[in-house]
């Protein structure tokens, strides 16, 4: 399929959703995430209480920046015209806190694309939006993201 045909095939995929992502957000996942970032904020670190139990930890909102919630892992499969893919930009809206013990279900939809000419040639700006619900069906966050497909 030529690049031009793939661009046309992309149009037919507008509205397509990716695989549903279900992430159980326990203290271990949160700890691994904040240690990777190097963020010492006590809000995200589980601390033992005096009776030996652990208090419930808030999910750092920027956890939703990670791929498993709103990145390539959640995107639908698309007929990309070119080989190179880069993250372009993203916006996250945090509607209510999420906590350790929550299960977050993320669904990402391909909502459209634009074509542009850049320094390295023709490129396609692929636009996605994602919703992130907790186990009670409450919307905790939304993501808008753009991936760049280029020569």
């Amino acid at each position: 399929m030529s690049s031009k045909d793939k661009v046309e095939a992309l149009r037919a995929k507008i509205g397509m959703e990716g695989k549903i992502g279900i992430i159980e957000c326990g203290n271990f996942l949160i700890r691994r995430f904040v240690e990777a970032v190097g963020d010492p904020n006590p809000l995200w670190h589980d601390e033992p209480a005096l009776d030996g139990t652990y208090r419930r930890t808030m999910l750092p909102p920027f956890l939703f920046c990670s791929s498993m919630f709103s990145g390539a892992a959640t995107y639908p499969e698309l007929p990309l015209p070119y080989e190179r893919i880069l993250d372009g930009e993203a916006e996250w809206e945090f509607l209510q806190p999420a906590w350790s013990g929550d299960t977050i279900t993320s669904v990402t939809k391909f909502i459209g694309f634009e074509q542009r000419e850049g320094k390295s040639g023709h490129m396609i700006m692929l636009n996605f939006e994602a919703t992130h619900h907790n186990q009670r069906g409450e919307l905790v966050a939304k993501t808008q993201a753009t991936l760049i497909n280029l020569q």
Partner: protein
Amino acid sequence: MGKQIYYEDIEEGISMPSFCKHTTTRQLVRWAGASGDYNELHYEKDFAIGKGYPQVIVQGRLKAAFLGQLVTQWMGELGTLKKMACRYRDVDFPAKDIICKGKIAKKYVKNGEYLVECELWTEGEGGKITTSGSAIVSLPCKKVK
């Protein structure tokens, strides 16, 4: 964590305390594992060279998380991060400093919330802006108990 800031403490134009991230390849691997991004561009040198880079590059979303750390650290336990946005403008490499900075663009009250809009960015080698972003934060207000 510093002292809690309040809406009354903020003036438009002031800067947030900045910090420096000196990433390592190990940190990029930890982020790959923690975040689910296994793109070889971030941990396999030959793969990155094959794609035209001199070495592996720092994940854009890790830099977004750095900016998330910057703003949540600044807003304190009583602040709420409502929105955050990032644009990945250029690459950063491990073993080089990434300076994370922010400043207050606007403050206003809307629907009873005391809101602050912030500009965020990372600076790489030579002070080049490699990520630009923004955030909207709700801060506590001293006069409202």
